[in-house]
Each structure stands twice: as C-alpha cells, then as structure tokens.
C-alpha cells in the first residue's frame, strides 16, 4: 500500500491519506456468559458423581483389568471382526445381486434386505439362539431325499457363540449391502464406458476403476457400521454369549456393584470405538485421493511439522562477494 492515495478529484475524502486504520471486531460478551454457565453445570455434575457415597471408584479400578472382563473384551473384538468381515463379503454379493439384471437374483436380494432390516436385531438374535427348536438335526445331503452325508445335532453345532455370530452377520449384511449398492451407484456411468473403450474386461473394470471409486463413498458409513457392530455385540448377552457386557453382568450379579461394572464396560467400549476410528481416517484418505486438490496433513504429519518448526533452522549462508548469475 502506498502512503499516497491518488488524488482523484471529486473522490478526495478529508481522511483519504490516513489509510492505516485498525478494524475492531464486534465484541461478543454472551460467548463468555454461555461458556461459564456450561462449565458451571459440568463441574456441578462431576462433583455430584464424584462425591456420591454409593459409588465405589476403587471397584471400578479393580475390575477394569479383571481377567473375566479381559476375556469378555477379547470375545467382543473377535465377534466384531468375524461378523464384520463375513458380513461385508456377503454384502458385496447381495449388492451385486440387487444390481444384476436377472429379476430372480434382484428380487431375492431385495427380499433379504427387507426381511433382515425390517425385524429387530434383538429378535433375530433370540431366534437364532432357538434354532435347535426348529431343526433338531442339521444334515448335509441331497435336499428332498433321504441321502445324507453328514449330520449333527443342532445344539452341538449352533452354540450360543455361533448363533450370535450368525445373527449379527446376517443382519449386518443387509445394512452393508445397501451401503455397497449406494457406493456402486455413485460411480459415474462414463467411468465404465471409458474403461470398456480401453479394452478392459468387466471384472478388471470393477476391480481397478469402479470399486476404488465406490470405496470412497462406502468407507465412512462402514466405519459407522463397524462401531455399531462393536456395541451391538452386547445384545448377545440375551443368549448368554460370554462377551464383555455379559461378563460384567455375571460379576455384578454376585457382588451387586452394577453401576461400577457398567462404568468399566463403558470405558472399554469407549476405548475400543476410539481405536477403531483411526484406521477409518487413514482408509478415507487413501480412497479419497484425487478428489480434493490438496490433502490436509495427517495428525502425525502435523506433529512432525510442529516439532520441526521448533528446531532452529539451518545456519544462514555465509556472506559472499561472488556475484555470478547462474545461467549467464
């Protein structure tokens, strides 16, 4: 900015030379008032809970790493991983069926989603737990004949754990298939045409062109589903699968410290869901490449950059008298 404004005749205001003016932002006193009010309410709540004589905080610490709780945590993680992996594979198949031009495949897929999404998950879990009432034996043979290769008592094969895995997987597959379908439909039709015009086969096109683009749309809701799945494993307590919540219930039914154990359980669920959000962040970045012009740095890159900026920079170059211009 030059100190001299051009003298433009009629536009000459009396303060036209004073161009170094400070702009004062609007004062917002209510921000302070509302912040203090919320902090007061929060501290009142914390003090009330912390000073409650009926809460035994020592018990929380004692049971946080109890072997039974830890085994429950292990089983919860196992159920989450298995159900999520199998249901995702199943979801891709169901979505492909739904998108196929074969009317039988697409109707069956529609019916599957309708049935599993339309009934409560809790009901489905209990239903799978009672599978033995429906079929006393499970047989491997030729349907509608007496030929049988192998058979097993239902209650031997379908333990509560297997029933729980089945219930969570089949239910999740219905939801995930809709996410996968939405992802596939989000890819522009021109992408398929461009791939075909280059001589790519339908399978190659799906793998290299369509799926990577669909993943960008699929991953955020699937991250949500993964977190839901982790928490929904607690529903399996109704069929006595010894996961985290069931273990806590068993312990509290003997020592009557229900609230303390619920705090333990909540702490574990919070920890696990927090851990699960990390891979999601990196997956989103991986599949989001090309969509934003410049990807923001990751938290680790930010920390590294911040540490680097604290270090003193390199010594300035020594003074020199050489004045050769490069390229001359």
């Amino acid at each position: 900015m030059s100190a001299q404004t051009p003298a433009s005749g009629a536009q000459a205001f009396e303060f036209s030379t004073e161009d170094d003016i400070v702009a004062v932002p609007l004062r917002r006193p209510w921000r302070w008032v509302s912040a203090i009010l919320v902090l007061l309410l929060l501290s009142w709540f914390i003090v009330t809970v912390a000073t409650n004589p009926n809460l035994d905080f020592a018990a929380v610490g004692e049971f946080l790493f109890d072997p039974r709780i830890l085994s429950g945590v292990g089983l919860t993680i196992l159920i989450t991983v298995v159900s999520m992996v199998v249901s995702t594979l199943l979801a891709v198949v169901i979505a492909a069926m739904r998108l196929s031009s074969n009317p039988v495949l697409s109707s069956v897929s529609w019916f599957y989603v309708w049935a599993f999404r339309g009934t409560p998950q809790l009901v489905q879990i209990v239903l799978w737990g009672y599978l033995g009432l429906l079929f006393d034996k499970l047989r491997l043979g030729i349907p509608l004949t007496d030929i049988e290769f192998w058979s097993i008592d239902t209650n031997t094969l379908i333990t509560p754990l297997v029933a729980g895995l089945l219930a969570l997987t089949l239910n999740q597959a219905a939801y995930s298939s809709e996410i996968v379908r939405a992802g596939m439909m989000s890819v522009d039709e021109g992408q398929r045409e461009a791939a075909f015009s280059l001589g790519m086969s339908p399978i190659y096109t799906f793998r290299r062109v369509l799926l990577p683009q669909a993943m960008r749309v699929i991953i955020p809701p699937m991250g949500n589903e993964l977190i839901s799945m982790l928490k929904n494993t607690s529903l399996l307590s109704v069929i006595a699968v010894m996961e985290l919540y069931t273990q806590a219930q068993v312990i509290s039914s003997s020592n009557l410290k229900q609230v303390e154990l619920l705090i333990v359980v909540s702490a574990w669920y919070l920890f696990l869901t927090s851990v699960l959000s990390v891979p999601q962040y990196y997956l989103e970045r991986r599949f989001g490449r090309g969509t934003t012009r410049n990807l923001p740095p990751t938290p680790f890159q930010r920390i590294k950059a911040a540490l680097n900026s604290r270090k003193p920079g390199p010594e300035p170059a020594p003074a020199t008298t050489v004045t050769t211009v490069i390229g001359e």
Partner: protein
Amino acid sequence: MTVNESTQSAAHAGAEQPSRFDPNALVQIRRVRKSFGAHQVLRDISLSVPAGSVTVLLGPSGSGKSTLLRCINHLETIDGGRIIVDGDLIGYRRVGNKNHEMTPRQIAKQRENIGMVFQKFNLFPHMTALENVMEAPVGVAKRSKAESKQRALDLLARVGLADFAGHYPAQLSGGQQQRVAIARALAMDPKLMLFDEPTSALDPELVGDVLDVMRELANEGMTMIVVTHEIGFARGVADQVVFMDDGLVVESGPPSEVLDNPQRQRTRNFLESVK
C-alpha cells in the same frame, strides 16, 4: 471377416450408395439399424472410412451421430446391419445368416484397437494423469511397467502436458483433462480413434488446445471419426463430412461439397443454425 463376405456386401450396398462404398476402407458400416424402445435412432446407416482419413459427423442433437459412434466400439448394441473395423465384425460372430453377440471378453479384445474420447473426458479420478495413461497398457495389453511409463510420458509430452504427469484429474483444467484422455486412448496404439463431441464441455478458450492436438493427430495419419459442432475443424481437417438427421445420412462428401455447397435443404438449415 472374410474377403468373400465383404465383397458380397459391397455389391449390395454399392447399388444404393455408389459414392460411399470402398471395400478396402478401415471402417465399413453397412445398413446399421438401432432403436431405443420404440424410438428408431439409426434407420439405415452405411458409411466407409478409409484408413488414414478423418470423417466428421455433423447433425442436430438427436440425429443419432453419437449413437453411431458408440456402436462402432460396441458400447451400444445394434439391431441389424454390420460394422467392420480392420476386417473384424464388431461385437458379433456370424452364425448362419444371423449375427450372435460376442462375450464381454471377446468384445474387450476388439476395443483395444479402437480408442475413444468422450465429451465429459471420463478420466479415472483416483489415478494421476500418468496412471490414467499407463493403466490399460499395463493391465490390459500386459506391457512392462517401465516401457509403458516411458511411452505414457512421451504421449503426455506430445499433448503438451509433460509437467502434469503427477496431477490428479481434479487438479487439471477441462482442456488439460481432455488432452490426457486423448493420450490415454493413444497409449493402446489404436488403429481408429473415435471422438464424441470432444470440445463441447470445454470453456471456449480451451477448445483450441484440444483441436490442435486432434489436428496434429490427423496430420500423422491417424484414422479418426469425430462428432463435433466445430465447423472450422471440419473444413480444415476432414476428408469426409457426413451430415446426419433423424437416424439417416442426409449428405456426405468432402467438406468443400457438404459444407460449402450443400445439396439438401436440411443440411443448409443446420449449417445456417450453427454458423
């Protein structure tokens, strides 16, 4: 296709359209018909494109020119007639007196010889410019990565984008994206290039760069079929201009005839409207 069969069709088509028949042409389109539901998009199209020549398809929107272009690499099926590119019947196998559609894999093999450039570029957004150009040579033609990369860089340099190899499509202007798309199609060494309104989605000041690349390609002897509204390009580069309306070829010939001395009223009306 056998020589025998193409000479047969020669006699047939030659009788009704003597000026357009060329049994040695790289692309031979014979009596092609195509409907979408009840709407007949292509009524009876016959056309020859000799190797090394440039054909421009002109016509009002809905005249069927884009559909015809998409039929040439079987992005659309046809209801009748035949399309032959470099001796291959496109998309179908002859069984008796009927043509049976090929499997997707067989069609993919045929498409390797036919490059296509789209109005909306259709670059793969999750790949850089270089990866876009390399993908088909490496993944489809199974060429070595190093060789394909060198060739891709050469092609990008040829379309004036040597410095943009590492950019994603979202980081490129429309004109740059379209030139990457041309390089991507050329990377498969096609015998024929199809251009479907390559400049229609571009800002006016970016059209020139894309047309320059196409002009250069034509000078190097590439066989090209171009759907465009750029009359100037047609006049300067085309060997043959085909004016289509309502699923029929109304008029065709060298630009000096079709553009400067049109015989039909419909052609004159159209040229008047795009002037």
